[in-house]
């Protein structure tokens, strides 16, 4: 084992001497307090180390030991419903050891060593297995957790036993003597192997109208949510964590508020998944590195999260990874880079920021998993970005834009008027629209794409018209343009707005989304048809059905909602009769 001594301490970065033989990204134990750290630069016999804990109290000449292994996470049953810090230490275990505050130098394994899991083999002695093959299963809450052959291992099974085991017990041995426990380790900075990447084609549904209908995301895709403070990034991320239709959700609180993590921790056990009826916490893995926890561990938290996500993907499962916020991760990079006295790129960020961001987002994807069985799994990354001053021209936003497939731009002006989710419909886009068109026509309705397009057109048109209104006032517009303003208002208020806190509306099923939009567009068509018969616009806008449209969100009964579309036509048709009779 390589043992050196501390030569310099500067905040979270230390330099150690006599470290010859160390490799980049080896994990080291720093000082007598045994603080975990990672080598981030080698210079002769000196190693520069980022330390995952507060370095206060460290002294020059204290020992530094190289463990010889890269930063890894433990993978196996027991991950679900856990809450970890940035380097996969379970927070409840830290609490049990050190109380209310996170003190230093405590090592706790990521997976519980005591707990026993019932292992059911699906293979038998004599079977040949390779990397990624399922040896057997374990029931983890409601998820069938596949125990897989770890990467790089293959051979003929000699023994395989069913029964109750801890994660470190050997459940299978191969003919060459390899022992396979349920637990496997994987270095976080390296993507787990798979066979082939697939094109995304299935949308990731969230129950949020502005996301699903307007700017859809796909399973295996990437999305970014940038927005200044107070625009609702965190609420959006949490809403997605609640309602995304994946079997597993990894939620990374990266450099964010402590109280927010508490919020997730207390809320998720009480909420149930609308699709399965099980508590949401049972499909969620949380990684919490709050803003006041050590900076270097914040940098690692993103990788810890994505590696866990990839592990579940390898079982053939859809996983969503939510990172709130990637800007804090970028800032951690910047801080460490500054301490390394590297030549800065834009705004003090290191020149390799774009590469690192791209490498992270590219770990998303829908893949054919490793193994001889046919399995497809996906990891979808949804990253929040916190641009300073809400200015999207800053490096993290710009570099993420180049990679992310869906762009949900949050807008402070919408948030100020409590239009939530404050997604700006003009700036946002989804590059996956064409990928999911087939799916939507097949599963929802053939004309979904058409209605969406018309709604977008009306919203676009509204912006143009508003510029004119600013100059000449609303009265100067002809009626056929006034209609557009009115319908755009209905789309904004009665369709796009969706309260995350409303019991009736926080989750909106896809079919309801479709009908809501359809009714609004039909209302628009009905008005235009009636206007051709010279019915005054004022009357058309004040039909009784309009207030029902405004309350569509609260309508839980889909059949009654569907009837509303007929009501809209009837009421506009009737108007003609009335006007004719009064005119006569």
């Amino acid at each position, binding site marked *: 084992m390589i043992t050196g001594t501390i030569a310099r*301490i500067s905040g979270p970065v230390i330099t150690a001497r006599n470290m010859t033989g160390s490799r980049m990204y080896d994990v080291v134990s720093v000082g007598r307090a045994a603080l975990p750290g990672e080598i981030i630069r080698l210079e002769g016999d000196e190693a520069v180390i980022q330390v995952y804990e507060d370095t206060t109290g460290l002294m020059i000449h204290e020992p530094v030991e190289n463990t010889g292994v890269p930063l890894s996470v433990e993978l196996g049953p027991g991950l679900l419903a856990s809450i970890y810090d940035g380097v996969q230490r379970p927070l409840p275990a830290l609490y049990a050891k050190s109380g209310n505050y996170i003190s230093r130098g405590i090592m706790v394994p990521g997976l519980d060593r005591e707990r026993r899991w019932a292992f059911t083999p699906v293979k038998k002695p004599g079977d040949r297995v390779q990397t990624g093959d399922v040896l057997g299963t374990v029931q983890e809450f409601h998820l069938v957790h596949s125990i897989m052959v770890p990467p790089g291992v293959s051979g003929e099974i000699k023994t395989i036993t069913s029964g109750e085991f801890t994660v470190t017990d050997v459940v299978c041995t191969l003919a060459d003597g390899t022992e396979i426990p349920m637990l496997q380790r994987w270095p976080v900075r390296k993507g787990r192997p798979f066979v082939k990447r697939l094109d995304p084609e299935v949308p990731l549904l969230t129950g949020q109208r502005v996301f699903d209908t307007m700017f859809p995301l796909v399973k295996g895709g990437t999305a970014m949510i940038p927005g200044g403070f107070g625009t609702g990034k965190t609420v959006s991320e949490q809403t997605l964590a609640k309602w995304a239709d994946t079997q597993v959700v990894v939620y990374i609180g990266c450099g964010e508020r402590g109280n927010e993590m508490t919020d997730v*921790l207390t809320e998720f056990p009480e909420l149930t998944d609308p699709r399965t009826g099980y508590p949401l916490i049972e499909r969620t893995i949380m990684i919490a590195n709050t803003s006041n926890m050590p900076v270097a561990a914040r940098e690692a938290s993103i990788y810890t999260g994505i590696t866990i996500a990839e592990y579940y993907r390898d079982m053939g499962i859809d996983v969503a990874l939510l990172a709130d916020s990637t800007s804090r991760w970028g800032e951690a990079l910047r801080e460490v880079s500054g301490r390394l006295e590297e030549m800065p790129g834009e705004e003090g960020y290191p020149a390799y920021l774009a590469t690192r961001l791209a490498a992270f987002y590219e770990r998303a994807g829908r893949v054919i998993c490793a193994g001889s069985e046919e399995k497809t799994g996906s990891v979808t990354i949804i990253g929040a970005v916190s641009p300073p001053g809400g200015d999207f021209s800053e490096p993290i936003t710009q570099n993420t834009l180049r990679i992310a497939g869906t762009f949900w731009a949050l807008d402070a002006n919408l948030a100020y008027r409590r239009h939530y989710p404050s997604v700006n419909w003009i700036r946002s886009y989804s590059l996956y629209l064409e990928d999911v068109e087939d799916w939507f026509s097949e599963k929802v309705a053939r004309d979904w794409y058409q209605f969406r397009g018309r709604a977008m057109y009306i919203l676009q048109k509204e912006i143009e018209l508003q510029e004119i209104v*600013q100059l000449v006032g609303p009265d100067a517009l002809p009626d056929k343009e006034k209609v557009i303003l009115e319908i755009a208002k209905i789309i904004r208020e009665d369709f796009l707005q969706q309260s995350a806190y409303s019991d009736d509306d926080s989750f909106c099923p896809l079919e309801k989304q479709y009908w809501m939009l359809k009714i609004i567009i039909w209302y628009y068509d009905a008005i235009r048809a009636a206007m051709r018969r010279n019915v005054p616009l004022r009357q058309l806008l004040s039909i009784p059905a309009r207030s029902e449209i405004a309350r569509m969100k609260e309508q839980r009964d889909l059949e009654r909602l569907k009837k509303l579309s007929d009501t809209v036509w009837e009421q506009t048709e009737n108007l003609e009769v009335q006007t004719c009779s009064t005119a006569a």
Partner: protein
Amino acid sequence: MQHGSLITVEYQTVNYVSGPLIFVERPKEISFGETAQIILPDGEARTGQILDISEDVAVVQVFEGTRGIDSHVTTVRFTGQSPLLDVSYDMLGRVLDGVGRPRDGGPAIIPEARLDIAGMPINPYSRDKPAEFIQTGISAIDALNTLVRGQKLPIFSGAGLPANQLAAQIAKQAKVLGEGENFAVVFAAMGITYKEASFFMKEFEESGALERVVFFLNLADDPTIERIATPRCALTAAEFLAYTHNLHVLVILTDMTNYCDALREISTAREEIPGRRGYPGYMYTDLATIYERAGRIKGCTGSITQIPILTMPDDDITHPVPDLTGYITEGQIVLSRDLFRKGINPPIDALPCLSRLMNLGIGPGKTREDHRNVADQLYASYAYGRDLRRLVAIVGEEALSELDRNYLKFADHFEKRFISQGNVERSIETTLQVAWELFSLLPDEELKRIKQEYIDRYRTLIISGG
């Protein structure tokens, strides 16, 4: 307070002095973050803290500034301890300086404990969810941006705006409904003027709360670098009072902009790569170590609620200090110069204000069932009214519809009657009552954010003169 060794090593090896930093050569057996005592040629003792050590040099920041330090006679003694604060229940009612030494001429604090001022991060798993509504008696806060116990809610002010009056009013009026109080206030001043500090003292004296307040004062003419320690000392005292003595502590930190400027000064002296506007790249993390020290802990009855005050240079909310603060704190109260000029008091600009924890503290059993809906409706209607004002400036009021004219009126009344309340304290019921009175300017179908049953229940109350 030497530990481990009876021998004290003194260094006379100061070789470089730059701004607030001194560089001590050939240090031995010293640890990162420990405090140093610096003895000047004239015998004056100052304190400092180690920022960086390597084998041949230690960088020490001197809290009281480096004036008078030379590179020959000055000696440096390392204490082996990170900066500690003597804390005691008897701190209540005392006035201390920026690093916790008595400033009021009274005796030294007899410590019940000596605590590290840096504090430690609270395990998110141990945190308890803030859930109790604090009634501040100010409509713009109670109704629209509710303060909850354990929250950190800053006031974003501009030079000359009455942020201090607002903070003092909150400190005086704040109470949790239906509870006898066990409260304390910790007040940390960083670089504010004597006049501002004495305003707060007078306010607390008038309300008879002076013996429940601990003052940590670093005034404008006190050493700049001491400001780095001031909020940390204050929060250490607050944590002790909250989690050891089970008090509900309100911490007022003013002015955080001065704190950040001190941070920038050190960063520049260390020749670090600057981030935006010269502030160091780690300012987010640094501010977080202050702001995150608010909250509640499971199993403790005490709590810490923070109201930091900061001045937005040139009223610019995108300036790094308010910007980074807004990213850490759970909302913000923003003061507006326009409203101040109009004579609105307090001049709170509702639109950019936010309380992220509001939903945890309101609703049936806490405030009232219609609270959330009323707040949303006030926001939506006021925002629309403000848009119309811009339109009116171009096309004139005649071009507007009857309804839009009502919205204009609504926006005016909202500012004059709802936001502006002077020194009057309003209960949450009164506040909601005023809101419903404002809604009478608008027809029912415009109240889209409010559930029909609440409209039926509360609107009739107003119309029938209730």
